[in-house]
């Protein structure tokens, strides 16, 4: 897809070291980057950290990049890798408290705030166990409010594939043992 000339110039200036153009690039792409990061790590502050890390890398790599058209895709790839790195680093700690053990620990009374908080923690972990593609689709849908066509474009999927992914994602979540039987 051809890039808007204004956007192209902005990216060029930013990569050449123009601080203010770089700021504009951050303003333009940071939310997109955030969504990708959040889809993977499922944690607000970690996702924000990854966004910053990604733009620092972009700043560092600035002058080496020749084609501004590839910049958005490069940015998202860097984000994805950074988020996966985080997840890998986090995993050894997370594996110690698995889903089922956590589910049995509940001492909170049903409907209390504590219970809701606990449930959300379960939900986040459950999302973390979904395949990355499923998580991304869910995030684009729920966080950004994209319709199916927008998600298809962003992820490069067909309508059928996307329906399958979202259907499977919601189905899997619904059937997670820790979440089963939850009534808010």
């Amino acid at each position: 897809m051809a890039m808007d000339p204004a956007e192209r110039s902005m990216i060029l200036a930013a990569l050449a070291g123009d601080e203010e153009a770089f700021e504009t690039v951050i303003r333009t792409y940071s939310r997109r980057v955030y969504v990708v990061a959040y889809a993977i790590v499922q944690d607000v502050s970690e996702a924000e950290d990854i966004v910053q890390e990604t733009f620092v890398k972009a700043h560092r790599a600035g002058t080496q990049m020749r084609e501004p058209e590839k910049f958005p895709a490069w940015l998202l790839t860097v984000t994805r890798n950074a988020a996966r790195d985080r997840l890998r680093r986090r995993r050894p700690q997370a594996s110690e408290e698995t889903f089922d053990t956590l589910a049995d620990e509940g001492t909170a009374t049903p409907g209390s705030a504590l219970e809701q908080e606990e449930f959300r923690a379960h939900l986040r972990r459950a999302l973390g166990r979904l395949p990355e593609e499923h998580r991304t689709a869910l995030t684009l849908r729920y966080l950004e409010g994209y319709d199916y066509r927008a998600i298809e474009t962003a992820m490069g999927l067909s309508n059928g594939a996307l329906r399958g992914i979202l259907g499977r994602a919601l189905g899997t979540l619904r059937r997670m043992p820790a979440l089963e039987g939850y009534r808010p």
Partner: protein
Amino acid sequence: MKPTSSHDSFDDLIAAALHGELTPEERTRFETRLQTDPAALAAYQETQLMHDLLEKTHREAQPDPDFEQRVISGVRRKIQHEKEHRETPWESLLILWRWLSGLLLMKRRPKWQDLAYVFGIIAVLSCVVLTGVSSSSNAARRASAFAALSSDLKQAQRVDNLGTIDYGKPIRSDAQSPGPEGNVRRNETVKGVAQLQDESGRVDLKWNETPRNTNAVSIVTKHSPPKDIEKTFGDITTLEKKEAALRQGFERGGLVAATTSPATPSMPSPIDAPSSSIDRLTGDKLSAQLAINSPSVDSAPAQTPEKPKSTTNDGSSWSSAGGEATTGSNIDANRKLIRNADLDLEVKSFQTAIDQIAALTKAAGGYIDSSNSQRGGNGKLQGTVVAKVLPQNLDAFLLKLRDLGELKNQTLKAEDVTKAYYDTQARLENARRMETQLQDLLKHENSKVSDLLQVERELGRVRGEIEQMQGELKLYDFQVQYATVTMNISEKDLNQAAAYMLKEQDNFSLFATNVEETFQQVRHAAEDVKGQVLQANLNHNSGSNVSADFDVMVAPEQIEAFLSQIRTLGRVENFTRQTQRVAKDGGDSDQPADQALTEKDKVQVHLSICSDDESRKQVALTVVASAVDTALEKAKAAALAAPGTEILGSSLNKTPQGESTGALSVRVPGKSFQALLDTFRALGRTSSFSLQRNDNSGPGATGDDEPVIVTLSLTDSDAPLQQTEMSVLTRGVDEKSQQIKKEAAAAGVEIKASGYQRMPNGLETADLTFRLPMSKYAAFVETLTKLGKVEVLTVHREDRPDRARADDAAPAEINLRLHSQGDIVTEEHGLWATLRQMFGEGAGALFGSVRTIGVIAAFLLPWAIVLVLVAWVGRRLYIRNRK
């Protein structure tokens, strides 16, 4: 409970139904299934719950409006941190050396990580070297660019000789936490300075550069003829010739950002002149300044900005006149430039100028915003007119204003508010979005009342912000729509005075024999000429001294009559007359006064009346007499006996040491003066005599019968004729001094002072001072020499010119010092004394060092504790952050 397998197509339908993505056929099929299959309905209901939960969870994860700003600040901070904590080459070398030494000593076996590490360090070092090379090549690039720029300017200005060029270092580099709008920038400034010299004078050329942001060129001439500089300045500001040269120069030097894409609608033009000023200094000297902006893309907003409503700024003369610099009106259409001009004009007629300005303003599509005027005491007018004109007509308008009179000063400024404008616009859009979201929240039926109240409050705050930002945008629009021209207009010779007042002041001293009588006479004289007495004081000072001050204002036509009357009253001295011209209306009194009226004001006369005694013949003599009080009485009796003599004052003082002094002051008629003086001289030996006579005094001062002031000083302390210093070495100093005192008393020699001293080393000294008549001198000195070995003998004699007194009776003074030989060896000797001393000094040094260590510890310990605490807290924080 579980109506489906791990996955079936009904899950997809449920998801699509919840997301509102079902086709009509699918919806029909789906609803039928729900009605017929309770398990499917249960699955749908559970998924719907999950869907709601996901929506809620994700809503909380949505980035807030400050998200972007936070990211920008974070990125800036991290980049800055990286720059500051980059490993230095020395650190790299040190690590490399440690690694190599470990390897060489075979303390560890080489691993592949080590190899990677070596390569890494080599890469870092290479980068450092390359960076150095690249920065030096940048400097060279700038220097060559300057040379090119100079040659362009040289051609245009016939410059023969180029001065020096100097590049400064970055003067500021900071990345602060963002302000309210997060617009704190990192600035690095490179300065270039050059001097251009031609036959007509010198031109200083300077520029400051903030990388890819602003280049400022200022041209300051000190001696160039005004027309030349005005032409140069005009050329540059209108961008007819120099703009291209300057731009090429800056581009060659890399001082202009690489981005010059003309197609970007939100980009500013590559070269712009947002501010310029021209100042007329004294005489023919002028200075001019021009700042040029290089392109920056800061104003490109993330969201597509609305097309500005104002179209007044689309063809600003700065870029439209620049030929090749023009990059299309669609670029400038989005620029937000506020243009202002200030100028000082001197005109012949204020009113005519105002009328012409009104007409010119109307022609330039503007209006007069405000005007005021004030008339000075000399009838001249001055005032300020503020006009608003369309920006594209500003330059023509300013040129036409020059025809109205002489331009004294002109400043032209353009403030680029593009970034601020679009920033505000973007923030406004964000705020509107937030408002919509908040409104949606309010519609939510299940919300609690407290939540709703909080949302309401937030909504109020956001609306306040929206209104404020809308106001800001409106203000910007208005400021951009019209350029403001502030004209300070004054009529020629504004400060010239209309009339002057000549003020005269006479000062003099009047010497009279009877001050009080003269004072009264002066008052009568003043009354005779109808003078206005400002001040009249009669002062009785100590003794019989009387003086008076008199201040009177006399009409100018009466002044000579008054002064001639005063002159008859006594002797006039120190006469001064001051004349001062003062502008009547407070105007400038230095302006030529060909046309102005001059009036003479009343003359102020200030005279001091003094006693004439001070200026008469005065005699002062000092007489040494053995009995001062008797001599004083005799002198008084003699003075009283002389006819017409008046005693002005007398005194007698006695000190505890027995010395007496006396003083007598008399006024003697000239005839009996000599006889009295002889009587005074007979009282003793005259040690000093002085006579003072003011021969140029006023009337009557030279006559012999005029009184003479005689001041007699009496003293019984006569200076010795001969002074002797003696130093005698002897044993038993104390006994010897007692002995000599007795001998002196027996011989009738006066002992004036004596003292005795004994030092720890056994040295004794005694100091004695004797006073004796010269007749006894030789015999007494002989007695003294017998006391011991005479080491020093000094004699000083002052021969007097008056031989009236015999030498035998003249006083002599002898200062004698008796002293013994001190002990050569001290009592502190021997083995024990040495050991005691040694241990004592050792212990002293030990305690001294202990004390020093204590002081150092007391100084360092708190710092050490603080450092340890900080390190501990830092480590805790680091560990927590890592978790």
